[in-house]
């Protein structure tokens, strides 16, 4: 049944080559636009997701809180209320898997004739775990380095490039704020953070070294902020509650009083960014779908013309025994063939356009089988939807009038 109908559909389409092509063109452009826009949207999403992954997962940042003195309120982190001991206590919580206290600063770094100003972060070895950061060379510093405040450093890729060029930095000695440090390892490249910062432009040193020998501190033993990683995404609310409770207790804060610290869920912030890019992908796809819709209307238009032109043929078919559903299927098949083959070429156009955008405009694009499959299904759906009315019109023609039609 289907095979001869397909053949007849092919004859009918071949008889009006230009018209068939133009109708398909509408679908090609529509599908091409959807595929291309989705590829670009998902590309942007991929970039965001990647920077989120580079930040580390299930991450909290615990900041020193604000204080009010004489009616003047200071911002978060202004008063160093968090200590190394707090960090160690947090590490003991069940919902927390790793904790890294942070003492960041900016310092001039010198190696031989080269010098470079960079972010220097004093922290503990678990920082690498929290940030999900690996080394590309050498070894990380250890807890004993933290205990004895040794002068060792891990360099980010950008720092390596600026100080060492092609030279291997492991084992070399650099100067941070005039003090000599041995480079024990090199951090793997991480790229840009969500707010566009170069994450590789950094040096990690033991936190004790940072406190005592590099930046000094008017409040010994305090840290600027603490990074804490929850054991899983599901345990994040529990982790937040446990930390709040623990710190309030440790800081002797009475019930009802404001906390002197601030816990921020970085993952939630990141998810918002991811959500934004997802919505953007959706928007691009939706706008492109409008051209798909227009393509569908083009199919409907041509099928209506075709039904009118072939009225007599329909009459003949009915006279020799075609049922309404046979006629309907015949015209529906034609509409689907046009939309699906238009879609096929449209996918090629869309993928080609995406590759071109990637090569010429350096845009991040992601083409997934799912998006192509979706475009195909939508196109077939458009064919059925917009082909149905004309096909139904054909099926309901009065055979007598159809046979009389010249």
């Amino acid at each position: 049944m289907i095979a001869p109908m397909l053949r007849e559909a092919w004859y009918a389409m071949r008889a009006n080559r230009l018209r068939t092509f133009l109708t398909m063109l509408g679908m090609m452009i529509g599908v091409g636009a959807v595929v291309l826009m989705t590829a670009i949207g998902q590309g942007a999403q991929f970039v965001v997701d990647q920077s989120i992954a580079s930040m580390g997962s299930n991450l909290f940042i615990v900041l020193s809180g604000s204080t009010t003195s004489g009616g003047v309120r200071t911002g978060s982190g202004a008063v160093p209320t968090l200590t190394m001991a707090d960090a160690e206590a947090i590490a003991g919580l069940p919902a927390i898997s790793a904790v890294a206290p942070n003492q960041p600063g900016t310092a001039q770094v010198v190696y031989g004739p080269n010098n470079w100003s960079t972010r220097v972060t004093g922290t503990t070895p678990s920082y690498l775990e929290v940030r999900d950061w690996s080394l590309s060379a050498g070894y990380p510093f250890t807890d004993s380095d933290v205990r004895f405040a040794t002068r060792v450093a891990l360099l980010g890729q950008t720092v390596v490039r600026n100080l060492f060029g092609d030279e291997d930095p492991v084992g070399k000695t650099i100067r941070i704020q005039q003090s000599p440090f041995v480079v024990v390892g090199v951090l793997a490249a991480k790229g840009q953070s969500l707010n566009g910062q170069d994450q590789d432009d950094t040096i990690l040193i033991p936190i004790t070294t940072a406190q005592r020998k590099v930046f000094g501190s008017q409040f010994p033993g305090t840290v600027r902020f603490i990074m804490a990683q929850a054991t899983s995404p599901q345990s994040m609310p529990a982790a937040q509650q446990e930390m709040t409770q623990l710190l309030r207790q440790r800081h002797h804060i009475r019930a009802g009083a404001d906390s002197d610290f601030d816990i921020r869920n970085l993952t939630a912030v990141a998810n918002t960014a991811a959500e934004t890019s997802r919505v953007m992908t959706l928007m691009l796809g939706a706008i492109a779908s409008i051209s798909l819709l227009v393509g569908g209307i083009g199919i409907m238009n041509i099928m209506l013309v075709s039904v009118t032109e072939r009225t007599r043929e329909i009459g003949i078919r009915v006279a020799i025994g075609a049922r309404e559903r046979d006629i309907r299927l015949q015209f529906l098949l034609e509409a689907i063939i046009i939309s699906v083959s238009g879609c096929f070429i449209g996918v090629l156009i869309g993928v080609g356009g995406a590759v071109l955008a990637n090569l010429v405009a350096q845009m991040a694009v992601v083409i997934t089988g799912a998006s192509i499959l979706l475009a195909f299904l939508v196109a077939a759906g458009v064919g059925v939807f917009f082909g149905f009315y004309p096909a139904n019109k054909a099926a309901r023609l009065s055979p007598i009038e159809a046979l009389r039609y010249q």
Partner: protein
Amino acid sequence: MAEQAFIVVEHLYKQYETAAGPVPVLKDVNLRIEAREFMALMGPSGSGKSTFMNILGCLDLPTGGSYVLNGQDVGKLGKDRLAHLRNEVIGFVFQGFNLLPRANLLDNVALPLVYCRVAKDERVRRAGEMLEKVGLGGYGNSMPNRISGGQQQRVAIARALVNRPRLILADEPTGNLDTKTSAEIMNIFARLNAEEGITIVLVTHEPDIAAYAKRLVRFVDGRVTHDGAVLREVMMDEQP
């Protein structure tokens, strides 16, 4: 009930609704056609014979009265059943041949078989046989516009025959053909009727064509005015 005729038409009425009110076309037509009959249907333009043929062919339904074909009351059948009757019981032959222009002769002849889901090999075989039968054996791959009118009408007859119908309705089948070709076509009909016992109802304006039939029914103004022998004098007032 006694042995029922192949076609029984009783008190058949048909009227068309127009803007100017209902226009009656058939008024109380009563007709019995036995199997194996060869009947010519004549009448001036507007006498209702085309409407009657459409009803016989299950393309149109009567407004009143009954039409029983092969024991089935056509007025009570659904659309799909009517299509089934057109496909398997009735074969149509039209004045304008009505072949599908884009399909070759074999596909044209095989078309009715597509609608009753006959497998491809069987379709090709039977359509080939039918083309053979009407003397166009080697033409299966030709296109309809490449052959003469007489040949096209023979293809149309082959198409009407391919599903082994019991009734052939021919609406002025020789209207577009010259005298010699008309005779060839009518000989095919006569042979089908005599040798295979296919009932044939033929609409024509030409006495020479009607003369092939064994029974003549004449319509005037929506009523049967003659039913019986094929008499020349009955046909004389016919407009060619």
